[in-house]
């Protein structure tokens, strides 16, 4: 059994950099864009459950396999695809490995953080800045801004989530691919 700390480090180092590629893969192959985030979370969970018994040598390949199997299982369970589509599923996506995002240079990474910040609503951004630059607690932030601590907490968690989505590249606007994914076909009968 892999130790939690080791598992976590592996997850952050090897799997999270795949998030952009993984999200794109799911989006390409799944009919309902609203489900992409849920599916990605399912994939992460299964990846961790698998890796717990031994870290895979090739994270990109492993995550791809898990993602592909999960989409197939979900599709079968949903009974939305006919047999020929399942056959097509075996040919899902051209590549058989997900590419990690290129390691960002320090300056690019900083630039991305800044873009992420700029996308936050003003209040949310302010709360995040007070936390990250001045290290204020939620209580101090509430006092400083003259707003309720509930508001601060809400804005802070929203900020955390939005920044994570932005920086890991997951939720850049969901874009429907021009060529509909395989599962975009409605069941024929």
């Amino acid at each position: 059994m892999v130790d939690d700390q080791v598992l976590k480090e592996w997850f952050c180092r090897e799997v999270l950099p795949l998030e952009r590629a993984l999200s794109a893969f799911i989006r390409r192959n799944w009919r309902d864009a609203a489900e992409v985030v849920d599916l990605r979370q399912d994939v992460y969970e299964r990846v961790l459950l698998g890796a717990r018994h031994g870290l895979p040598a090739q994270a990109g390949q492993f995550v791809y396999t898990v993602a592909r199997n999960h989409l197939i299982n979900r599709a079968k369970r949903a009974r939305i695809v006919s047999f020929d589509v399942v056959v097509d599923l075996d040919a899902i996506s051209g590549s058989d490995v997900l590419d990690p995002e290129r390691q960002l240079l320090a300056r690019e990474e900083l630039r991305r953080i800044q873009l992420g910040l700029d996308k936050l609503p003003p209040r949310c951004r302010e709360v995040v800045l007070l936390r990250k630059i001045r290290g204020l607690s939620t209580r101090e932030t509430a006092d400083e801004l003259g707003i309720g601590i509930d508001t601060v907490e809400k804005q802070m968690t929203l900020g955390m989530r939005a920044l994570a989505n932005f920086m890991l590249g997951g939720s850049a606007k969901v874009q429907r691919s021009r060529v509909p994914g395989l599962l975009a076909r409605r069941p024929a009968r």
Partner: protein
Amino acid sequence: MTRSQDIEARAAEWLMRREQPLWSQTDQAALDRWLDESMSHKAAFWRLEHAWQMADRIGALSARDIAPRPSRAGLPLKWWHAGALAASLLLAIAFFGLHSRPALSPQPSVDAFDTDIGGHRIVPLVDGSRIELNTATNLRTLISNKRRDVWLDRGEAFFEVAHIEGSAFVVHAGPRLITVVGTQFSVRRDGDNVTVAVVQGRVLVEDTTPGASSASITVTPGDVAIGLGSSMMVVSKPVAAVEDKLTWRDGRLVFDGTSLAEVVDDFNRYNRQQLLISDPAVAAIRISGTFKASNVEAFVRLLKEAYGLKVELTADGKLKIST
């Protein structure tokens, strides 16, 4: 809200609460339980935690980058104003060495440095400053044009700060924030207890614990500021006594009528071979002298021969000192 968004929202709540000052063991246990409930909880929490750590780099953005939109009152800006003000004040009163002013790299990055038990390491920083790490120390640095930040996560370090106009040098030590107005000082951190000793120049020590945000003191040469929990006190000592506290820099420990209990604590900081005192009478024995920090053997021999104490090895490998 979808299932995964629901989990993510809860993970964010945990993450936020964990950063608050009142976070307790009980809270941690509750978080651990939640994480253990499902691998999907771990996935969501680890992911957010990772990204949120990446966002620490926000501190490296320059004031211009994060200036608030013009339509709104600028809170973050106030901070930078304060910094500029402090910097100009600093010019008037600061004692600073004749350091050259190297051009700083426009690309700041977080660097981590640490030492093991018994370790000792000197780290030159890109801005021309130097940090000397004592035993069992972890610290991180973030150097940018506008600001130099050091986080002392544990242990002790001695700082020689290159004076750069308009660039504050700030040491974060748990609940204390140490802003440097001067040049040579040390910071030691044991959990939340922080000790600052100044050899040259002056530093400002602020309490960052909630409710005490305005408490700050200036520490000048010969002063040792000790922050314990919410209280902070300054002890004035002869400069020589402060320098004795810094003899670790050349591997020596100097004691002058120090209780054996404190001496043992000091040796234990530097050595894997731990010492143990069982008897209060023994703990109160006063010790004077200069010792090599890494030489426990010599110290133990002295206790046996000069003080007639008994030293025996316990089952868990510690050396127990008794009469």
